[in-house]
């Protein structure tokens, strides 16, 4: 390739580094900190080998293998083996995501044309920016290796030796380098930033799932996933280097490909033109409800799926609860608080409560949509039509409530499906559903509270999140911290009886529901009276 394509690459590197050096540094330090702290905490959590042996057996549970990967070196489960088993995969994914984001931020897409035009109007070679980015990504990931080797060796843990540390660092660095380069190639092909991001993240997700499938069945499928392949290094156990070499070779090929493609490409366009290629059906919106659903569609669907998966995963370990809790004092305290009923049932109550707390997040994200529309001034078009504020307000509120209900049903369905074998002898399906739904008023309470703030002064929504945070903290950790009953009862989640072990508390339900209705109505009264778009 001609030299002129790369003119002024050095300046580009400087230009980008000047702006982003702190971000890059913070990223490297965070990965370092996370790795070192996890290694240190494994040392404290499982100091003796016998205890680690038990954990190794636990880690072989299929759902944990699917989540974290296969257990290597279980016959001699050293701290190094624990680290590579429990921390490596998540770090690989985080490094990959960061690299993809960084690359996407700096390449030209059709949206940020004006900036890149400005940039490219300087005497900068056509491919210089790409090369600069490659150099920066290389430096970044190299620093990661360097930092990790030093950091891990400083810990002075026997099983974490020099060879393993270099491999550990290289695995992470190559994950970043590989996914970063892949994103560069995709960016040459397509001009739409969201499409590039979707494809890149999609591939990370796909690689993760592919290796999960392969790891559970313990077959060759994992090798087809770059993430799975990297894990096969068995770092700190066998320290195989072949996967790193394979990924490195592929990465180099990807980089050359990206450079080659970049000289063919117009600024801000992709080699593959999608105009008129992606045709979809015309979306017809006839009402504010239709709009509210349309703009949130994908988020809503993702949350429903997440709730099913979470319900299913929490449910799938009910059968092995005895094993888990025997090994882990912390979890045992957490789950079995007032243990007059069976462990499985106690666990079920805790999970129901947790999922109600979690379910509030999508509920709030969805109801705040009405404020997002206003804040972004898109609502101007809608409210200028003959649509009353009452109609508008409830066009967002009612779908949010229904969506929250569906979330809980999805969770309940997933959980019951995978756990009923173990809990149906102690709790009937209808009692289980009542137990799940007994938390629904609390979700409505938070929806209405945010409507109150949206009505009075949307800037106060942060207070809503604060209250939510405090209540959740009290509910989840309060008991473990030994706080008094009075303090714990501030949280409405603690006001809900553990049906059917305790009697259903109608009184509290009425109180919570009344609060919800009052907040809702007051919220609307203020919403009707206040200026819109006056921020």
């Amino acid at each position, binding site marked *: 390739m001609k030299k002129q394509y790369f003119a002024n690459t050095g300046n580009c590197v400087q230009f980008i580094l000047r702006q982003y050096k702190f971000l890059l540094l913070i990223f490297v330090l965070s990965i370092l900190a996370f790795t070192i702290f996890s290694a240190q905490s494994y040392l404290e959590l499982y100091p003796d080998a016998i205890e680690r042996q038990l954990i190794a057996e636990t880690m072989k549970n299929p759902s944990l293998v699917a989540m974290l990967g296969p257990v290597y070196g279980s016959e001699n489960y050293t701290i190094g083996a624990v680290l590579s088993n429990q921390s490596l995969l998540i770090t690989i994914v985080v490094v990959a995501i960061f690299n993809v984001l960084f690359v996407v931020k700096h390449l030209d897409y059709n949206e940020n044309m004006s900036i890149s035009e400005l940039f490219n109007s300087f005497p900068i070679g056509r491919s210089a920016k790409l090369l600069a980015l490659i150099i920066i990504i290389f430096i970044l990931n190299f620093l990661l290796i360097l930092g990790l080797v030093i950091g891990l060796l400083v810990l002075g843990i026997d099983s974490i030796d020099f060879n393993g540390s270099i491999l550990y660092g290289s695995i992470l660095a190559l994950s970043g380098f590989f996914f970063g380069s892949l994103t560069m190639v995709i960016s040459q092909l397509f001009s739409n930033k969201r499409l590039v991001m979707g494809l890149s993240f999609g591939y990370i997700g796909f690689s993760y799932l592919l290796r999960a499938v392969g790891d559970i069945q313990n077959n060759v499928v994992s090798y087809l996933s770059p993430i799975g392949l990297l894990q096969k290094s068995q770092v700190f156990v066998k320290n195989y280097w072949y996967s790193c070499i394979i990924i490195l070779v592929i990465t180099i090929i990807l980089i050359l490909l990206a450079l080659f493609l970049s000289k063919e490409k117009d600024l801000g366009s992709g080699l593959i033109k999608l105009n*008129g290629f992606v045709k979809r059906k015309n979306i017809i919106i006839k009402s504010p409800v239709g709009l509210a659903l349309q*703009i949130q569609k994908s988020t809503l669907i993702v949350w429903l799926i997440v709730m099913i998966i979470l319900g299913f995963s929490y449910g799938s370990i009910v059968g092995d609860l005895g094993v888990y809790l025997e090994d882990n004092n912390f979890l045992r305290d957490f789950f079995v608080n007032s243990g007059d009923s069976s462990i499985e049932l106690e666990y079920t109550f805790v999970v129901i409560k947790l999922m109600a707390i979690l379910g509030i997040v999508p509920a709030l994200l969805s109801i705040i949509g009405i404020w997002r529309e206003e804040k972004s001034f898109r609502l101007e078009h809608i409210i200028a039509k003959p649509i009353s504020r009452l109609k508008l307000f409830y066009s967002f509120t009612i779908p949010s409530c229904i969506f929250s209900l569906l979330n809980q049903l999805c969770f309940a369905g997933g959980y019951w499906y995978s756990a009923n074998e173990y809990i149906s002898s102690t709790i009937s399906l209808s009692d289980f559903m009542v137990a799940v739904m007994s938390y629904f008023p609390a979700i409505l309470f938070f929806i209405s509270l945010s409507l109150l703030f949206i009505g009075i002064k949307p800037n106060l929504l942060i207070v809503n999140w604060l209250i939510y945070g405090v209540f959740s903290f009290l509910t989840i950790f309060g008991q473990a911290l030994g706080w008094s009953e009075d303090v714990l009862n501030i949280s409405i989640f603690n006001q809900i009886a553990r049906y059917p072990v305790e009697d259903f508390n109608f009184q509290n339900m009425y109180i919570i529901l009344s609060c919800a209705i009052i907040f809702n109505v007051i919220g609307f009264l203020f919403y009707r009276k206040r200026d819109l778009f006056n921020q």
Partner: protein
Amino acid sequence: MSYLVKMENVKKTFGNFNALDGINLNVNPGEIHGFIGPNGAGKTTTIRILLGFYKANGGKASVFDYDCWKDSIKIHQKISYVPGDVMLWGNLTGGEVIDMLSNLGRRKISEKKKNRLIDNFNLDINKKCRNYSKGNRQKVALISAFLSDAELLILDEPTSGLDPLMEQVFQEFVLETKQQGKSILLSSHILSEVEKTCDVVSIIKEGKVIESGELSKLRHLTRMNFIVHSKENLGKLSDSKGVINYSFDEQTKSATFQVEPSNVNAVLALLSNYKLDNLEVYPQTLEDLFLNYYEN
């Protein structure tokens, strides 16, 4: 019903800042009304009060004799609005937004007119709004507004993102709307933009309408530019009553100044005391007039 839009001494404060300080504005049926003022004068605020987005702190505002705050829904049935900053839904295409807005407006639209608008404005309606430029987003809103067959269009700086060619298309549709007997309230900061289409303009500054009337009559408000050549010393003129912005050019030996229309006779009388080599008098352009307003 006398006026379509009627505002009497309308006030609006944000905190302790008086954004509108007693606005008086009347729009007659069938009129294209230009609403002109510098940045931050209060145009958008006024329009948002008319639409019932903001509640006025004082005075009376009505459209079609309906109260702007209490009966906004009834008003919305008969109007169409294009905001100053058109923000759209990134995930929907321009065509989908146009269809949605006419569905929500619950008015029958003519497919023929829709296609003509899209053609003339040269908009690719199959693109996602996320990929539209500012001008293209504005086109989406303008097409929806012209399509709606509303009796009154309220347009906030509708041409700020359009190129000259599209501005012309816009003006054609404004005139077509007018021929159908409908009315338009159109805000802008540039006079030449409204000069071609508007019958009446109101000039707003610092929350007050400082001038309002037919464009032809407003021209009477323009000052006269005087250029006087004389060998005599004209210095005394600079302090004389009615002489504004006096300056003297040593090279050409000429004095330049402006005179309010009401003082022209007095100043001419004054000048008759001097021996003049040459005298040029011509009216300021409207653009100059607006600069006068904008400045002080």
